[in-house]
């Protein structure tokens, strides 16, 4: 096992995993408590349009993914905050359009055989060293913004209407949050792929919510859980020669269901039968 850790690509993979898990730990709880899970999924998939565009015009795929996810997050955000009715439909449409656009653009890219799977399901073992400082900088940005305006984010997440009456610039904070979600999603695409991003944003946050008494401890616990899932999933992938992204998600999902069952059983034992709500 230690000999594997000596390998440079493995060290990069672990470092990238930890950096992404930190972003996921801070942003995931905000996604969950603000019920933005579907929107985050839409942003992740729409990012594929940007990846296709990058290949077609020959620029860095990460830049394409980042710009597309930022734009789609803003578009989805303005639609969902303005007209609440049917906003999920529009998120769903953008979700699919982004994917379709990406596939068609890659079709049109002459003589280029893109490894689609690595974007759909992650390629943590192929993270180049040059990505690490960028990821660290994005983490810093996320932690700084959420840290500085923690009380504001707490207030708008708990009761947006009260926060608005109190004079908190709810809309501005909401769009900044969407931008941070887009940034986190792009980081997570590296690790688990755009199809599996939602799982890593929600599973640690959900498990943390059951165990914590405040939003910031929920963030710490979900970051820690995301790190554990990433390390364990990566270990499983290397040991059994499996896909890394899917292994990470399966480890997370396994813990999630185990947790659900244990909680249910405990509730069942604590209360008279039939009283469980």
């Amino acid at each position, binding site marked *: 096992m230690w000999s594997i850790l000596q390998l440079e690509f493995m060290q990069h993979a672990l470092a990238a995993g930890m950096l992404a898990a930190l972003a996921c730990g801070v942003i995931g709880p905000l996604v969950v408590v603000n019920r933005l899970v579907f929107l985050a999924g839409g942003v992740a998939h729409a990012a594929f349009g940007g990846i296709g565009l990058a290949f077609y015009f020959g620029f860095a795929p990460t830049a394409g993914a980042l710009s597309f996810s930022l734009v789609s997050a803003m578009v989805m955000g303005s639609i969902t905050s303005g007209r609440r009715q049917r906003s999920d439909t529009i998120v769903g449409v953008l979700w699919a359009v982004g994917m379709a656009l990406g596939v068609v653009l890659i079709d049109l890219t002459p003589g280029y055989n893109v490894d689609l799977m690595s974007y759909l399901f992650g390629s943590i073992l192929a993270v180049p060293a040059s990505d690490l400082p960028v990821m660290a900088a994005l983490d810093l940005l996320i932690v700084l913004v959420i840290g500085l305006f923690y009380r504001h984010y707490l*207030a708008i997440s*708990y*009761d947006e209407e009260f*926060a608005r*009456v109190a004079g908190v*610039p709810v809309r501005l904070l909401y769009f900044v949050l969407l931008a941070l979600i887009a940034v986190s999603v792009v980081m997570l695409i590296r690790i688990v792929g755009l199809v599996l991003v939602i799982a890593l944003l929600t599973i640690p946050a959900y498990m943390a919510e059951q165990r914590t*008494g405040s*939003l910031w401890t*929920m963030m710490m616990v979900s970051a820690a859980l995301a790190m554990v899932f990433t390390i364990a999933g990566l270990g499983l992938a290397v040991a059994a020669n499996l896909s890394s992204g899917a292994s990470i998600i399966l480890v997370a999902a396994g813990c999630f269901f185990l947790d659900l069952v244990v909680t249910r059983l405990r509730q069942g034992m604590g209360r008279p039968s039939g009283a469980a709500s």
Partner: protein
Amino acid sequence: MLKPSPSQAIAPPPGPVPAAGSAIEVDGLYFAYDGEWVLEDVHLSIPERTFLAVLGPNGSGKTTLLKLLLGILKPARGRVRVFDKAPELVSERFGYVPQNTNINQSFPVSVGDVVLMGRLGRGLRLRRRTKRDQELVRTALERVGMWSKRDRKMAALSGGERQRVLIARALAVDPRVLFMDEPTASVDAVFQTELYSLLKTLNETMTIVVVSHDLSVLSSYVGAVACVNRKVFYHDSAELTTEMIDRVYHCPVELIAHGFPHRVLRDHRDS
């Protein structure tokens, strides 16, 4: 008058005040949901330190009216002025108790942190919580009898306790106007009596607007009543004799629930 704190002082209305000491002015207000009028031609002039009860059956537009006064909703026509300004410009001195106390029930947050949300203030100021913030939070929690539970998780509270916490959050604002939407919906009778006597004390320094669909609020110390049923009829203190409140209160609630508040209050067409 309230002593405005330096950081949050609302400038007094410039020049001569049109309606002396008026807290809330509503002029020819209309509001529609999906093309259907919910409120029509509403005129209100509520003097400062009024204790106003907004009554009406379910779906009559009471909550909508409240949200228009708070600046959460914008009128389709007409205008709302609070202390002579658009409500959203002075709303940091509004204490708002929303109707739905079940929002985000599993949200991981403590009682104390929820009440502290009342101390955020306008904009994105980055400031540590001050001594004054802590005092206001403490006083607010003590007033609703929840100080001993300040470290409890909101999710662990009963509906009535959550309601008390949301009332404390509104009081922590140190409001000039207190807006409450069905504040007694899930509290027990004992606390309801306590709340009304608390409101009486608070009314000495602030304007209070209480929305209710049941008439028990009239057993409190209300000074004026606005009956809402798409149109709004205002009955000021002169009309609200003790005897009348007594009569209203002892009438079956259905009277108002069915939209006939006119039988107990003076007929609206007369006014």
